[in-house]
């Protein structure tokens, strides 16, 4: 009997060993922790992640980075930003050339180029798109031999019978050439109340007839029952829009009121991408929205990639568009680009990738670990991972640590087109106003709030202290001595050095608050800092830090944390005193930063984005002049004047410009960081063989600790068995 047990025991061990060997052998072929199908290991697929699901991929509505990072690969507005050049340069994308701009007078007569601003009543932008551009394959275009659309007469019953659940369930696909009318169609969609375009109100101020077009569509919709509104197809080709016209198959015009030079930047955004009427006719059929088959989730574009799998709760897959019109990698860039390797693919045909897979990864820790294992091709370095990846060299520069460098990771740092600041409500009786007293109080606070320390402590150095509202790489930003804010910094030994606290205290005393006591009332100066609470782990530390900054100059700070809604409400009605805010630019023009300090955009008075309600007539006049000018010396001089005024008035503690640090794998081609809308997939190349080899090398499974744990568990059972044996013997 004992022999039998022994034999069984040996057999079990043998079986376990064989199983472990089999597992180890299979693991040599492909890592066990590989989250992707083994068949995709050697494919030319780019892997990345997204933190938050996009709300909508409709180009009329999509506006956040979560959305734009996808649709910018799919839709093609008429213009785009040059991939490499800095400051940013606009170039044609689907158009033959940049649009021709004609200025008209009140009688619609063409004005000469040298016409003054006052003479120009309207401007006409004329576009000519390239022939031979085709849409991605899509069921909306599918036609039978008789030229009838397969899927333009659908209803719930047909969809049920055909077992249609997603877009891929449609058997037929088709395409058609891009025409000027598609661009016009999309501009009309901006006014469709169902599209809920965030820029409709703003664009209505410029595009002639857009507001009236919106009213007309509203009226038409109001005649419908509420349930049909969302699904009904409005063929917008039947509704003319005064300021936007099709000239011929490949040419169209946009007519705007007066001048708006910044329109050129909007024309590089998906809001102005083409939408074929067939797509709207297809998606606005009964039964489609119930299945989430809508333009919100299934874009139809002409870009280098098309969306093939959209599960916003899990993954989004983009595949190479077989009908892509072709484009080549730029052959010239900014100074230093060749040395950085950004021109290594110059002249080659785009795109390089066959597919891009984005996985929803909400948590930073697993996201970073998967990058380290080679399962993501690039990763942003968040505050949690900063110390694991980055070290400071003897010159004070940030670089990858030795371990990361040994694995040939590459680091790129880019400045975002945004600014984070501490705002003073200029309508507030204490911190607001334009008197010398108020200016000095704000400037004293500006010196006391040490942004450099904030960047070091809370951002791990991922930011640049702001000297004004305009960030680097935007026209108007000056580096060095000429660019510093002289009210807060001194230039010493080639660096901007924050003024001493003694100077802040002196300013405070001059403002009538010596030692933080109001000289008139004898009461302590207590300021209210309104901030939205997010529940972030470092939130309390940040509030405490802010209190300490004010304590340096003997001001008591009362932190009033509330939900974001309530904070915004206070800002809207002008009851906030001090608050943290930020601005993320739409385009890299100084106008898009300086306009948030223009009086005409005051939040309280005009419902505009000037949250601090700064309204200085001198600044406003210069702004009106600057916004219409091309980038030249004169414009630069005006911008510097405006910055001087704003710095003197100090409506913000200028804060910082955030930086994004990205680490990429060695198998990825160098990717130039951009402050606009993240990675541009069509310019990226990778070496899948190298990736597969390194993944195998980095992820060899280790079994022995598991066997040890199992052994320990078995050992832990021995006292239990002994105790059981004793108990049973005792019972007998």
């Amino acid at each position, binding site marked *: 009997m004992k022999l039998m047990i022994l034999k069984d025991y040996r057999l079990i061990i043998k079986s376990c060993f064989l199983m472990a060997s089999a597992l180890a052998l299979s693991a040599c072929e492909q890592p066990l922790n590989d989250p992707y199908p083994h068949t995709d290991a050697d494919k030319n697929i780019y892997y990345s992640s997204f933190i938050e699901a996009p709300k909508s991929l409709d180009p009329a509505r999509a506006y956040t980075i979560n959305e734009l990072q996808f649709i910018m690969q799919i839709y093609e507005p008429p213009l785009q930003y040059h991939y490499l050049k800095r400051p940013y340069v606009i170039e044609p994308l689907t158009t033959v050339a940049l649009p021709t701009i004609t200025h008209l007078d009140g009688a619609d007569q063409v004005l000469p180029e040298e016409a003054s601003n006052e003479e120009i009543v309207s401007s006409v932008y004329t576009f000519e798109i390239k022939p031979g551009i085709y849409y991605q394959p899509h069921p909306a275009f599918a036609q039978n031999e008789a030229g009838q659309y397969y899927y333009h007469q659908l209803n719930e019953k047909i969809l049920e019978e055909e077992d249609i659940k997603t877009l891929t369930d449609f058997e037929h696909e088709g395409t058609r050439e891009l025409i000027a009318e598609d661009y016009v169609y999309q501009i009309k969609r901006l006014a469709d*109340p169902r599209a809920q375009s965030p820029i409709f109100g703003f664009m209505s101020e410029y595009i002639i007839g857009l507001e009236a077009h919106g009213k007309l569509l509203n009226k038409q919709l109001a005649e419908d029952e509420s349930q049909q509104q969302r699904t009904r197809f409005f063929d917008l080709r039947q509704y003319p829009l005064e300021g936007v016209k099709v000239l011929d198959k490949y040419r169209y015009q946009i007519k705007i009121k007066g001048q708006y030079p910044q329109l050129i930047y909007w024309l590089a955004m998906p809001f102005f991408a083409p939408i074929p009427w067939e797509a709207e006719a297809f998606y606005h059929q009964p039964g489609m929205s119930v299945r989430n088959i809508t333009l*919100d989730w299934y874009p139809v574009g002409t870009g280098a990639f098309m969306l093939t799998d959209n599960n916003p709760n899990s993954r989004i897959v983009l595949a190479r568009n077989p009908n892509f019109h072709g484009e080549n990698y730029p052959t010239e860039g900014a100074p230093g680009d060749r040395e950085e390797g950004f021109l290594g693919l110059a002249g080659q045909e785009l795109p390089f990738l066959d597919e891009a897979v984005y996985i929803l990864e909400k948590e930073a820790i*697993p996201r970073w*670990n998967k990058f380290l*294992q080679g399962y993501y091709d690039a990763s942003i370095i968040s505050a949690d991972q900063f110390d694991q990846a980055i070290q400071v060299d003897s010159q004070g520069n940030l670089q990858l640590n030795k371990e990361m460098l040994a694995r040939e990771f590459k680091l790129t740092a880019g400045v975002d087109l945004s600014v984070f600041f501490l705002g003073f409500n200029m309508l507030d009786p204490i911190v607001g106003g334009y008197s010398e007293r108020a200016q000095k109080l704000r400037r004293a606070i500006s010196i006391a709030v040490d942004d450099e320390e904030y960047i070091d402590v809370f951002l791990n150095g991922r930011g640049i202290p702001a000297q004004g509202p305009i960030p680097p790489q935007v026209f108007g930003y000056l580096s060095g001595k000429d660019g510093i804010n002289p009210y807060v910094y001194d230039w010493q030994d080639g660096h901007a050095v924050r003024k001493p606290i003694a100077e802040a205290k002196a300013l405070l005393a001059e403002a009538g608050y010596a030692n933080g006591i109001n000289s008139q009332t004898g009461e302590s100066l207590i300021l209210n800092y309104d901030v939205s609470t997010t529940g972030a782990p470092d939130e309390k530390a940040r509030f405490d830090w802010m209190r300490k900054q004010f304590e340096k100059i003997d001001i008591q700070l009362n932190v009033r944390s509330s939900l974001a809604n309530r904070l915004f409400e206070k800002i809207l009605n002008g009851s906030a005193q001090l608050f943290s805010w930020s601005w993320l630019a739409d385009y890299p023009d100084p106008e898009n930063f300086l306009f948030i300090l223009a009086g005409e955009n005051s939040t309280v008075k005009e*419902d505009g*984005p000037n949250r601090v309600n700064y309204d200085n007539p001198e600044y406003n006049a210069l702004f009106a002049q600057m916004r219409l000018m091309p980038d030249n010396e004169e414009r630069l001089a005006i911008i510097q004047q405006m910055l001087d005024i704003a710095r003197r008035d100090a409506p913000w503690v200028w804060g910082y410009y955030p930086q994004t640090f990205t680490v990429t794998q060695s198998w990825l081609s160098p990717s130039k960081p951009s402050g606009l809308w993240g990675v541009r997939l069509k310019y990226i190349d990778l070496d899948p063989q190298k990736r597969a080899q390194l993944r195998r090398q980095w992820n060899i*499974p280790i079994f022995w600790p598991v066997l040890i744990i199992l052994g320990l568990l078995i050992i832990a059972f021995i006292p*239990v068995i002994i105790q059981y044996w004793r108990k049973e013997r005792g019972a007998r």
Partner: protein
Amino acid sequence: MLTYIIRRILYAIPVLIGVNIITFSLFFLVNTPDDMARAHLGEKYVDQAAIDRWKRQYGYDQPLFYNAEGEHINRFTQTLFFQKSIKLFAFDFGISDGGRNINYDISQRMWPSLAIALPTLIIGLLVNITFAMSMIFFRHTYIDLWGVIICISIMSISSLFYIIGGQYLISKVLHLTPISGYDTGWQSIKFVVLPITVGVIAGIGAGSRWYRTIFLEEVSRDYVRTAKAKGLAEIKILFKHVLKNAMLPILTGIVVIIPTLFMGSLILESFFAIPGLGSYVIEAINQQDFAIVRAMVFLGSVLYIFGLILTDISYTLVDPRIRLQ
């Protein structure tokens, strides 16, 4: 029994209406329809006209509970509460404020949640009962003492530690399973092994302690003493008689949560990138998507009530003395 079930279902209607009123009141106490519009449209370039358009489009331009401008019954029916609630009772959750079909999303997201929650419950139940039984078998010995200490230790550590620790040890150091992710069909196995293991281990402490308490109460009863006096082996007494009699309180705790299993686990799903329902409500609250919030709260209430009815029915199966009237 049928009469009892019908009566319980009828009782559920006022409960669900009450839950709905509370959901509405709490949500709109914190958010106004203007806030919701801003959350969906963003803050840039969005003026009051755009906000009003959004509210009109999504039906948030009506009064909350009472429409003073309406006539007769319309004073109550032409309100946000009535318009948004009535379809819930037909389980037609409609379109989310973000434009997606809620029923479709729930039907898609419930399976990944279930793929984690169901095995975790079953395996956890077996492990916890076995562990608790072992502690009872060895009660008043150092094994029982150490068992309790281990349970309390496991309970005292945050579940986040098990998740991060599990990912670090099993996936990052040993390279045995993917750190996170999900796939359908058999491919899902490699993704669910680690979350299930973590879920079971994290639940051992609380589960085993609870079952130990139940079993401890049972073993002090007269029938156990009688069985012992008759010479029955203790292991047989425990697994055959005590376990059977302890099923009633165990069922009370288990059956009620079975229907709510597919609601998922927020932290577990978030860290393991499981596209389940766990984070659906939290995402909706963050995005101020009231359509999803009210649908999920309603569904949660319905499932809880359903769980309670199931519990009552299961009592009759476990204990024939109980009759539902």
